[in-house]
C-alpha cells in the first residue's frame, strides 16, 4: 500500500489526479480479474479460457463452440451474479461515504437510517403474511419497506435538518421499530421454513439474482454516482458542519434532502435484491480515505471501486469457505471486513 505516496500527493491537484487515475485503472483491472474468477469457480468448475469465450459469446462477439451447459452457467448464472455483487458493493460504499460526510459521523452507514430494517419488514410482510396476494413481489415489498423507514426517519428528524446526532437517533429508533416488527411477524405467523428463508435473506444472498436485477442496479448505481460526483464539492463543504457549509454558499437543506433520498433509493434497491449486507458501507469509505484522502471528488469513485472488488471477493469466499454450501454474504463481509478494518484502524490511530 503506498501510504507515503498518497500522503505526499493528495494535497496537490496534478499528481494527485494522476494517482487517482492510476488507482482507478488498477481497480478496474482487478475487478475484471475477480469477476472472471467468481465466474469460473463453483461446484461446477469452469476454466478461465472457457469463461472468456462464454462471455464473448454472450455479448455476441464470438460464436465459439462450447457446451451449452457451460455457456449457460457462466452467462446466465454466474456472470450476472458477479456483476450484481460488484454493483452492490459499489453502491453501498458510495452511500456510506455520503452519510459519513452528511452526518459527520465515522460510524454512519446506509443501515443507520433504518433502511435495511424497513426492507426486511417489507420482505417479511410479503413472504410470511402474503400481503399483496402474490401480486406484490418480494423486491417491491422490500423497496416499500425501505422507503417507509426512510420516511419515518425523515419525519422524526424534521427532513434530516435537525442535526447529525438527531438524525442518527431517529435512524436507530426506526431500525429498532422495524426489526421488532420483523421478529414479531416471523415468530407469530411464520413456520420454520419461512423463518429460515427470512433469516437467510436478512443476512444477504446473491443466489437469486439474474440479468434484470443487473440492468436495474447499474442504472441506479451509475446515476447515483453521477449525482454524488456532481455534489462532491458541496459534500466537502460539510467538513466543519452545516452552518459552515451554508456560509460557503452550499444550499444545505436541499443538498441534504437530495443526498439522503439518493442513499435511501440505492440502499433500498440493493437490499430488495440481495438482502441486508452490513459492514461494506461502513468500512470501504474508511479504506478509500486511507488511499486517496478525504475529498469527495476522489473519495467517491475510489469507494465505489474498492466496494465493488471487496464484494465480489466476499461472494467468492461465501461460495468456497464451506463446500457444497453458500455462507450468507453478510456473514462473510463481516468476517473478512473486521480484521481488515482493524488493521486500518490500528495503522491510522492518533499518534500521541
Amino acid at each position, binding site marked *: 500500500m503506498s501510504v507515503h505516496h498518497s500522503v505526499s500527493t493528495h494535497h496537490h491537484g496534478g499528481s494527485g489526479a494522476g494517482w487517482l487515475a492510476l488507482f482507478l485503472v488498477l481497480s478496474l483491472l482487478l475487478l475484471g480479474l475477480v469477476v472472471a474468477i467468481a465466474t469460473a469457480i463453483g461446484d461446477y468448475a469452469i476454466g478461465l479460457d472457457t469463461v472468456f469465450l462464454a462471455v464473448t459469446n454472450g455479448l455476441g462477439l464470438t460464436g465459439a463452440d462450447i457446451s451449452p451447459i457451460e455457456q449457460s452457467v457462466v452467462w446466465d448464472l454466474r456472470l450476472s451474479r458477479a456483476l450484481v455483487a460488484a454493483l452492490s458493493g459499489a453502491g453501498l460504499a458510495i452511500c456510506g461515504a455520503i452519510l459519513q460526510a452528511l452526518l459527520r459521523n465515522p460510524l454512519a452507514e446506509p443501515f443507520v437510517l433504518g433502511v435495511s430494517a424497513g426492507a426486511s419488514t417489507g420482505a417479511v410482510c410479503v413472504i410470511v403474511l402474503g400481503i399483496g396476494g402474490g401480486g406484490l413481489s418480494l423486491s417491491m415489498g422490500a423497496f416499500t419497506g425501505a422507503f417507509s423507514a426512510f420516511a419515518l426517519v425523515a419525519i422524526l428528524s424534521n427532513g434530516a435538518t435537525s442535526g447529525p446526532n438527531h438524525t442518527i437517533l431517529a435512524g436507530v429508533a426506526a431500525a429498532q421499530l422495524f426489526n421488532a416488527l420483523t421478529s414479531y411477524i416471523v415468530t407469530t405467523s411464520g413456520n420454520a421454513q419461512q423463518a429460515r428463508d427470512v433469516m437467510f435473506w436478512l443476512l444477504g444472498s446473491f443466489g437469486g439474482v439474474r440479468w434484470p436485477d443487473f440492468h436495474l442496479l447499474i442504472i441506479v448505481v451509475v446515476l447515483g454516482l453521477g449525482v454524488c460526483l456532481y455534489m462532491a464539492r458541496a459534500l466537502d*463543504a460539510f467538513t466543519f458542519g452545516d452552518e459552515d457549509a451554508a456560509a460557503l454558499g452550499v444550499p444545505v437543506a436541499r443538498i441534504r434532502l437530495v443526498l439522503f433520498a439518493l442513499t435511501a433509493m440505492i440502499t433500498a434497491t440493493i437490499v430488495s435484491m440481495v438482502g441486508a449486507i452490513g459492514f461494506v458501507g461502513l468500512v470501504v469509505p474508511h479504506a478509500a480515505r486511507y488511499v486517496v484522502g478525504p*475529498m469527495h471528488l476522489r473519495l467517491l469513485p475510489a469507494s465505489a471501486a474498492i466496494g465493488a472488488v471487496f464484494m465480489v471477493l466476499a461472494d467468492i469466499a461465501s461460495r468456497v469457505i464451506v463446500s457444497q454450501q453458500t455462507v450468507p454474504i453478510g456473514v462473510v463481509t463481516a468476517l473478512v471486513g473486521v480484521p481488515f478494518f482493524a488493521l486500518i484502524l490500528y495503522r491510522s490511530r492518533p499518534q500521541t
Partner: protein
Amino acid sequence: MTIEAHNLVWGVGRKTIVRDVSVSVQKGETLGLIGPNGSGKSSLLRLLAGLRQPRSGDVRINGQDVARVSRRALARQVAFVQQNAATDTNVSVHDVVKLGRTPHRSALAGWSAADEAAVSNALAQVDMQSRSGQAWQTLSGGERQRVHIARALAQSPIVMFLDEPTNHLDIHHQIEILRMVRDLPLTSIVALHDLNLAAMFCDRIVVMQDGALVACGSPGDVLTEALLHSVFRVAASVSAADASERPHIRFRSE
C-alpha cells in the same frame, strides 16, 4: 455603506432573541459587537451574514437584500468564521483553505490558477504558507483559527464576520488575530468578549443587551463606567482616552 440592517427581529418559538436592531457599517470598518452572554450577539451576527432569515426587517450588503441573493452568490461576498469549528476528518491546511473557493467553483470545474493564487494569498495573509501541507489535527488552537480566517479570505469576500475569533487563545494570539483582522482591507464585524481588546482594535463598537442595541459609537464614546455598570453589571474605572483615543478599562474587585 457596505452593510445596512433595518429593524431586525428574530427569535426561536415564542422567545424573541433579537429585538428591532438597526445598524450600518462603513466600507473598510472594523465593527466590534459586545454584550453579555445571551445578549444576542451571535444571533445578530448570523442575521447580518444572511445565515438566518429575520422575522422582520432586512439586511442589505452593498445595496442588495441578502434574503434575495442565492446562497452561492452571497458566499462570494460574505465570509463567516465560526468559533471553534472542528472536524474529525483528516484534512490538510491546504484542503481547508481550498474549501473557501467553493462558492467560486462550478460543480466539476478544475482547480484554476486564480483559485490557487487566492489560496496561497490567503495563507500568506495569516502567515501560514509554510504549513500548507500540515494535517489539521496537528495544529494548535491559534493556528486553527488562523487557517479558518485564511479559508474565509480565500472566498475573496468584501465583508467578513467573525464570531468570537479569540476564544480559547492566549493573549499573544488574541492580539495577533485581532490586529490581523483590523489590518485586512475588508469590512469586518467581530463579536468579542474582551472589552479592552474591543477598545483596542475596533473602529466602532455596538453594545447588545437582551437582544436590543443599547449603544453604538467609537470605543471612547461607548465604553463608559455607567454603561459597563448597567449592561455588564461590573464596577470598573475607565481611564480617559489617551492620545490614541482608545479607552482602557480596569475592573474593580468590589
